[in-house]
């Protein structure tokens, strides 16, 4: 195990020597690979991506193409088989930085909010308790301040009167809006969305997308995996097209949707409703 890790690390270093990370970028991914079943399944097969501050990067592509794996690798919920993920200039896949200081993934994750397909609210806690749990437990805010902040965030997404409700008492769209503001409560530098509307009833998709759009307009850096092509086109500042574990094509929404280059992307776009 240790030897395999060491070999992977060596290959990553070699790759980085030829393809250095973009230190200006908020997130810089290099040579990212994620294999399952000893390499039989290659969810990610060598991906390089940079995400700059203020960008709204939308990741599209066929199912099983590696979209979610890429997104989940950014905060290491998915541990890469090989490759590097730089966050604010630091390679977070390493145990220690160049000065030998330990890299604490928990501190990094505090700056990367994440929203899941299945909402993943804590069912035993009320809406506001869900939101203040992390900021209070991690010593970022005092409980009273956290409550005030959470309440203000809830007002912003139109849920000011549901602070004391339990998640199960909310609709799917409301739950997802709570999940978004729960992540915002930590003042993240970037927000990661993993198919945030895929588990919603159609009539609730809009309310969640509206919140995300608002967030994008306020300048939040976002990485969004979605099948909502309208959203991608309207809100995205850059589109990544992932298929078979590779970044096949990327560009501005207009280029991607109106003038796709690769056959793979043309084929994909012909099958999705726009």
């Amino acid at each position, binding site marked *: 195990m240790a030897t395999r890790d060491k070999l992977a690390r060596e290959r990553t270093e070699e790759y980085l020597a030829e393809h250095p990370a973009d230190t200006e970028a908020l997130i810089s991914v290099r040579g990212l690979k994620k294999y399952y079943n000893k390499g039989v399944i290659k969810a990610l097969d060598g991906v390089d991506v940079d995400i700059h501050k203020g960008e709204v990067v939308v990741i599209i592509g066929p199912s099983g193409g590696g979209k979610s794996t890429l997104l989940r690798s950014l905060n290491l919920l998915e541990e890469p088989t090989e490759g590097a993920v730089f966050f604010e200039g630091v390679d977070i896949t390493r145990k220690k930085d160049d000065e030998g200081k330990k890299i604490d993934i*928990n501190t990094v*994750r505090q700056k990367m*909010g*994440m929203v899941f397909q299945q909402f993943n609210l804590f*069912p*035993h806690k009320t809406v506001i308790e869900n939101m203040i749990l992390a900021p209070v*437990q991690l010593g970022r805010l005092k409980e009273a301040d956290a409550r005030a902040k959470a309440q203000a965030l809830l007002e912003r997404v139109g849920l000011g009167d549901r602070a004391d409700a*339990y998640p199960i008492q909310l609709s799917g769209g409301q739950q997802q809006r709570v999940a978004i503001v729960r992540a915002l409560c930590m003042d993240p530098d970037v927000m990661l969305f993993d198919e945030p509307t895929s588990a919603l009833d159609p009539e609730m998709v809009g309310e969640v997308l509206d919140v995300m759009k608002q967030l994008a307009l306020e300048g939040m850096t976002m990485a969004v995996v979605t099948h909502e092509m309208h959203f991608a086109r309207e809100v995205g500042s850059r589109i990544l097209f992932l298929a078979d574990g590779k970044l096949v094509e990327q560009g501005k929404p207009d280029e991607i949707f109106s003038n796709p280059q690769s056959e793979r992307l043309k084929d994909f776009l012909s099958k999705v409703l726009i």
Partner: protein
Amino acid sequence: MITAEKFAAALGYWQLFLEGTLCTVVLSALAVLFGFIIALLLALMRMGKVAPLRWLATAYVELFRATPMVVQVWIVYFLSRELLDLPNFLLFGMIRFERFLPGVIALSLNSGAYLCEIIRSGIGSIPIGQTEAARSLGLPAGKTMRLVILPQAMKNILPALANEFVTIIKESAITYVIGVQDIMSAANSVKGATYSTLEGLIIAAVLYFCLCFPTSKIIAHFERKMSRGYKR
């Protein structure tokens, strides 16, 4: 045959039964408490990343589940006599400590093995998304377990826990073989003193029932209370 006279004679020793009941209650409560702590440690070891700890916990669980309780009680009793110099005093003025403590230890060790499996299945029943959500907020693994996973797991395993608690009250009767003065031992003493076996045993059965039945009802009540927030 069971006669009214014999019953009256057995009931004449009510003080013995009262002391026995108190002993059973304290014994079971302590066993449940320590058993739960042992079980929590074992469960975390078995689900942890350190392989030797995982094997150790697994071996422990299998060992205690595959040997009879009465053997465990005797072994703990004789080991405690060999290894520990237990003070010979009366707890609450009536419970012989050097018999009582090995009883508590044996019951705790045994129920720890069973509770471990219950806790493990409870933790396993919580969707992985809960852990991911907590970790993505920056909560460390320990806090995630304590604040997010365990509270939900406890709710799921409460019925099984209640069962185990009741089981311990009943199984604690076995400790009378090493001289723990519980309800069972009271029935035994009455038999020796009055030559009426059945009457003493029936009183013991009634007492055990009076302990076990309400316990399961009380826990069922808490189960309903804790499930708030899960219902519309």
